[in-house]
């Protein structure tokens, strides 16, 4: 498609989600930012690191604590054209998690890959 100067340019936005899903708001805020960026047709990388990998853990039933199920939204990401989803291998390993225990298929990556994603980004959100 031709570049239209009247339209905002397409930027590479990387979202590094590092908070567990409940107890703090960071995880939900990050998901909302990712979905908004995708709706505005930006190129999105969604990276789960540190406790953020817990967002992807299968079997969450947050109704037990009157919270919305954040993990339910992840399977809707393809509908938002968000397909660059990465999970830090070391963060998984430290928490005793394996990729088959996660709610969606992701690209399991190392720190070098995350460093590369940052280098390729116009803006990095880290929460």
């Amino acid at each position: 498609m031709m570049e239209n100067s009247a339209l905002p340019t397409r930027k590479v936005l990387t979202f590094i989600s590092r908070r567990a899903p409940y107890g703090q708001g960071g995880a939900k805020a990050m998901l909302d930012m990712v979905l908004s960026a995708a709706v505005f047709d930006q190129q999105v990388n969604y990276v789960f690191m540190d406790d953020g990998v817990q967002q992807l853990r299968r079997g969450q039933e947050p109704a037990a604590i009157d919270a919305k199920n954040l993990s339910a939204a992840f399977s809707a990401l393809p509908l938002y054209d968000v397909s660059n989803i990465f999970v830090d291998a070391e963060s998984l390993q430290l928490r005793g998690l394996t990729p088959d225990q996660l709610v969606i298929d992701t690209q399991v990556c190392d720190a070098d890959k995350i460093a590369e994603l940052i280098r390729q980004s116009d803006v990095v959100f880290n929460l």
Partner: protein
Amino acid sequence: MNPTLSTLHTVNKSAFGSDALASCLRVARSGDAILLLEDGVYNPVDAAALVGAGLARDILAENQSRAGPAPTGGSEGIRIYALREDLQARGIAAEQLPAHVEPIAYKDFVALVCTHRRTVSWF
């Protein structure tokens, strides 16, 4: 320093209560800068220890700009800075900092933001 590639990382939490520093060090790369601010200035960033523990690589043993202006194109390594006001507020004297951590003022913080392609805030 390649302005199209290099990243300014800011860390505002102590490593004793947060994984912000550890995760920052895992993905910071040569040419990047790390600025310690707020409780981030408590971080005992002992370069040799970090590199030895496999927590970081490329950290300069001594911050080049502290030793004098960086040679042209001399971008190797990761520079570490700490915000002077936050050090002062917490009773950390400049002399107590390891050689590779350079205390800087707010205006230098602004300059760092401007000379790097992007800023990543770790907290």
